């Protein structure tokens, strides 16, 4: 799974709302501290196939993405270069 990190719950919800009828979309989570940049934030948790689409929607909305991480273990994440 991939974590696409946004500054706030509001911004994450705005991007998420675009996918409200998309069954393949996973959802929103509180960003794990290990990958949160400067503290608390919210992430959209998606499958690999959705990452590009989410980034493109966020970009079209003018919303900055703080980072993208791939989960490789319970508490292990690898940053995905944007």
């Amino acid at each position, binding site marked *: 799974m991939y974590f696409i990190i946004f500054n706030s719950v509001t911004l994450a919800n705005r991007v998420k709302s675009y996918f409200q009828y998309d069954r393949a979309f996973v959802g929103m989570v509180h960003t794990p501290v290990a990958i949160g940049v400067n503290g*608390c934030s919210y992430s959209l948790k998606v499958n690999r196939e959705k990452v590009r689409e989410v980034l493109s929607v966020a970009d079209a909305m003018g919303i900055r993405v703080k980072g993208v991480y791939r989960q490789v273990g319970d508490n292990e994440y690898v940053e995905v270069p944007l």
Partner: protein
Amino acid sequence: MIYLDNAATTLMKPDGVLRAMADCMRHYAANPGRGGHQLSLFAGEQVYRCREQLAALFGIDTPEQIAFTSNTTMALNFAIKGLVSAGDHVVIGGMEHNSVLRPVVHSGASYSVAAADATGLVTAQAVAAALKPDTKLIIINHASNVVGTISPIGQIGALAKARGIPLLVDAAQSAGVVEIDVKRDGISMLAFAGHKLLYGPPGTGGLYVHPSIRLRSLVEGGTGTLSEQQTQPDFMPDQMESGTLNTVGIVGLLAGVSYVRNQTVARIHAYENKLTTRLMEGLGNVPGVTLLGGANRVGVVGFLMEGLDSVTVCGKLDEQFHIAARGGMHCAIQAHRSLGTEKTGVARLSVSSFTQPADVEHAIVAVNRIARRK
């Protein structure tokens, strides 16, 4: 009781507002944007839906630029004190409420008043005449809380845009009953009440800020974001929303805005117009009554009764006829100065989409009787 004090706050709310708030209280009034459990996330989603509905209502492309406040006054304070400093110059309309006048004075900025005409109308020409080369902000009351007159914010917005000056609109009395489109009307910041004609509960309101405007924050604290940082986030809405949000109120507001959008602003305005037209026709025939305000108005009717104080008129309406109305200054001394009613105050009757034609007829009879008995 016949409730004709809707300009203060609407008493009757759509059933959906009451149901939504009760459902929230019972099932998911967790803290939105704090933590990651399902109830917090769901509450956050509902709060976001409210921003989305408000954005759709006001022609806003960026729902995150709407911050929730507890009322219009708070929103106006955020906008004025966040932008204006001592030494700046501000233009305010001649019908402003104290929620504009007092923060402007407190900021230490100098201000000029764009004169209102005898009906309470503030034109773009009047605003242009009040501008100075260094004017930092124009603040206009969209619809008067004293007499209901609607000022042409689209024309004033075009002027503000041409001069490169931000326009802050006080939409306390117009949001939900007059079409507002921030892009079309050239509005940089929009302060609105949730508890009036958007039919949310008391304690709700908000401020839209155009993405190009950076305000100083007035209240700092927890936002659920950037917690490692010692300074307030500089992005909306977090910059303006420190501390726990009024989730139950916002969910009620969401249902209220949905009601307005379903009814449509145009239909609500037409209905209220019908009521106020009849009210003015009826009151206009009462001996000693002088009607105030212009032809283009929201559902507010202000009047004077010869030989009787405005507060006394409203006291008699309450005690003798069980009609809720408001007399006095309506926290708007600037507006009363413009109208020349600062010594008498004004008796005010105000309707909503829940006011019935029979309520208006009852009020006309009551005012008639008071006028004849005095």
